[in-house]
């Protein structure tokens, strides 16, 4: 069996097919995996896609974090496997402690659904290795709870270790330091609120997500 990227589907996930199609568009191998599974199988990478896992009840990601597959995802991440959380997936990664901080309700309460300029801040991650620091990327943003928060100590830790992967070009939701995405220290776990999978196929109007998903596919080989 060939190894592939596993795209975790929770009840309420709604971006899994978008991610699957765009990974395939970029010639990557991927398949969906249901959250009740307890084995990742022959896995080269894991993506937690966007949506509203378990209805976002309690807090986004709080219940998904305890789905059976998550123990395996955590083990895979801790062994150095590439793991990407997009939007709701980012929220799951912070809830399970693979990434620092938390995502809170947007300042102004507005649900943001816009394609917005973001700045690539580091190439030291499985999502950005093929990119260029300082490069502006136009990425679709689609969230109501994407306001990244953490305490001062954590923010210092993120900055000192180059863990901020992506920022918004302007403040859109109150996120500290306009943070749109972060990584863990090893760089194999990344979470971001914008949706790179919605900016891959030129048919959709934007292609700046290609460099991000291509980096992830490269890391998952």
């Amino acid at each position, binding site marked *: 069996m060939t190894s592939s990227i596993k795209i975790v589907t929770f009840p309420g996930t709604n971006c899994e097919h978008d991610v699957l199609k765009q990974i395939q568009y970029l010639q990557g191998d991927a398949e969906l995996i249901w959250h009740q599974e307890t084995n990742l199988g022959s896995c080269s990478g894991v993506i937690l896609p966007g949506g509203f896992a378990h209805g976002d009840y309690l*807090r986004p990601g709080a219940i998904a974090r305890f789905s059976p597959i998550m123990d395996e995802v955590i083990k895979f991440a801790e062994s150095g496997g590439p793991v990407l959380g997009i939007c709701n997936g980012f929220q799951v990664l912070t809830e399970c402690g693979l990434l620092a901080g938390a995502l809170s309700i947007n300042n102004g309460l507005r649900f943001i659904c816009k394609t917005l300029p973001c700045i690539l801040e580091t190439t030291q991650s499985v999502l950005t290795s093929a990119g260029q620091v300082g490069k502006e990327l136009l990425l679709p943003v689609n969230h109501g709870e994407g306001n990244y928060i953490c305490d001062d100590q954590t923010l210092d830790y993120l900055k000192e270790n180059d863990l901020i992967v992506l920022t918004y070009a302007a403040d859109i939701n109150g996120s500290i330091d306009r943070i749109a995405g972060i990584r863990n220290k090893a760089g194999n776990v990344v979470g971001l609120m914008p949706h790179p999978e919605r900016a891959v196929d030129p048919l959709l109007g934007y292609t700046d997500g290609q460099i991000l998903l291509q980096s992830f596919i490269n890391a998952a080989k």
Partner: protein
Amino acid sequence: MVYQVQIIIKPLEQIANPEGQAIERALAALSFSTIDSVRVGKVINFNIRAVDSSEAHELTQAICNKLLVNPVMQYSEISITAVAD
């Protein structure tokens, strides 16, 4: 013993609370001009079986730590009342 538990989950003081701010603006628009510092949290009620109130408290605290409260942005206040043997 059965204990009735109430957990009040509040946003940490240093975290902005846009829901509270929106309610505060609405109240001001309704001429309730003496209101300020509105903060919105969550209340969770349940019954719990435990040998005594100390065990009930311990279990409730464990539940808060494990699932109900994210300490990055929230804190909780727990109240416990005995309701039946």
